[in-house]
């Protein structure tokens, strides 16, 4: 069983996940409510990308990590715990926190990826949002007996 995610505020980073060999997610724009940034960092190589949902490159992500990527790392650490994030990204050091993960990856001078991943990440975000609108049911779901709650936190 997987321990559940930890609670966090969603306004700034509504979506973050460890999937497709990347830390990836969506960061709300501070100025335009219609705009979100789609950001990602690859495990191992730390190759990064950041662009808007309309496929415009992020001005801050020229040559190095932007603020959106830092926000993504911070929220991922909140949601999954620092250990799981560091292990997934293959960042290795003692006394880790979000700042340390960010600094270590930056120190490796990662290259900038093309924006090919952005469409995929955004479609995963939409899939994630679709869960909000799926109907509830009062038919019994005996299969859920295999998924008890746990007080263990990540």
């Amino acid at each position, binding site marked *: 069983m*997987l321990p559940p995610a*930890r609670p966090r505020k969603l306004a700034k980073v509504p979506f973050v996940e460890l999937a497709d060999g990347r830390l990836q997610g969506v960061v709300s724009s501070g100025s335009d409510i219609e705009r979100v940034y789609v950001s990602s960092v690859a495990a191992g190589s730390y190759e990064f990308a950041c662009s808007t*949902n309309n496929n415009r490159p992020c001005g801050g992500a020229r040559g190095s990590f932007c603020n959106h990527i830092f926000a993504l790392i911070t929220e991922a650490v909140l949601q999954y715990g620092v250990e799981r994030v560091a292990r997934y990204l293959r960042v290795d050091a003692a006394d880790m926190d979000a700042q340390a993960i960010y600094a270590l990856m930056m120190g490796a001078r990662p290259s900038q990826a093309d924006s090919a991943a952005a469409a995929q990440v955004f479609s995963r975000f*939409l899939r994630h949002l679709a869960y909000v609108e799926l109907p509830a049911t*009062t*038919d*019994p*779901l*005996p299969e*859920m007996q295999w998924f008890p709650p746990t007080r263990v936190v990540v």
Partner: protein
Amino acid sequence: MVPADQGGGVMRADLLADPVDGLDEVLVAVAGVDQALAAGLLRPQPAQVAGLAALADAVTGSPLSARVAEAVEKAAAGAAGEEHFLSLAAARTALLGSVHDALMVRVEQATGRAQGGSSVPVPGGGQAENLVLAARSWLADLARAGWQGIDHDLVSGAEPVISALLPEPRLRRLAALLDGFAAELAASCPGSALERIPLRRWGDLWSRAMLLTLPGATEAPASTVTGRLLPLGVDLHEHATAAQAQVHAVFEPVGGTPFLVRASVSAPKPDTIIGAGIWQLLRPHLSLLTAVSEGRSMDLTDMPITGEGDLVWRDEHARLGEPADPFVTARVVLPAASALPTAPLDRHPARIAVPVFLEGHSAEQPGETLTFSLAGQPVAVDTDRVPAAGPLTPEAVATSNACIGLLRWEAGMFRVQPLAVETTARKKVVALHAGAWAGGAVDKAGVKAEKAATDAATVLRERAGRLLRR
């Protein structure tokens, strides 16, 4: 005057600790299949073939015998097709069904409550739809690769199937199961690097999903009931993207003897909806959750119910009733309540969740596990299942004088999952319920948790409204 006892009295904890005859042998046969699934059935090795042969031996003489023998032969040659995997899953499920039955005999002895009624009919037949066949095909690919052979490509193959299954309430059982299972597998990729594989668990999830792809497997014929519903407590289930609240209760039919029932509500959810957010998500769809939080009974009129005692809740058939303290229900009504038989597909040790009432125990915690000593007999207590979004805590359980719980069987032993406890604070008896926040929290910690959860849900709904369907 003591009435002829159909129901349960004081729990005989000593009987729960006794070994169950034949149990180990059956579990060895199950482990044989599970080992075979670990390495995968593409090119089975001699040890895997031996494990499968033991499965075939175990069902010899049963109606499954010939089909399973054929499936094992094909699988041993690395030539198993989907119908053969179905037979293997059916055999494994049948073995665990026998474990369930043996354990339930023990539970009946320990609680003094017999399962009444005739057996639940087995549905089935008809044509499987394409979507379900796509799920079956993915499950067959999993079995060929084995847990050690899973990678991201294979696991993500389930995503389009799950996305298509989820919106269809008819197929929700398969969808919710596959969704939780696939997420677990994804977090365990690549399988070749796994240090420890949850063999029994993944074997369970795989074979259950496989059987749910059979047409009619989830059909449950319903009748209706009228009478008074007395809640005992709420059991919560959750994985990252689904949650279910299940209310255990005693039902008093008009002019009949009381029996145990359950009422459930479930919904898919984003993984960031957790804790109090889950109660908020489920609350609007089951008025019973409000009754539970307010300590009230409900009056039901013509409420649909399945043969195994699951109410298929319709708010329009229920009315809020008089106050009803669950501890009074547990002390007075529960001992006289009978139980309905379990549906064939639900005969599995993991599905055992029998309401029990314990009183006059002392708590001990020698190691990791809390134990109640009941008339000198230890009973393990599973406090990890107590949901974090509620006022009941492991500490309160450890100081309790009385406990309403669910008797479960897990990791080879019986355990009690607390649903509510009574403790004594400043010479006053205080009751704490795991599901107290289900219908809405009023205490300070609960209100704070509700506020945070509302904010999270608001953001997601706003984002969904703005970005979906564009």
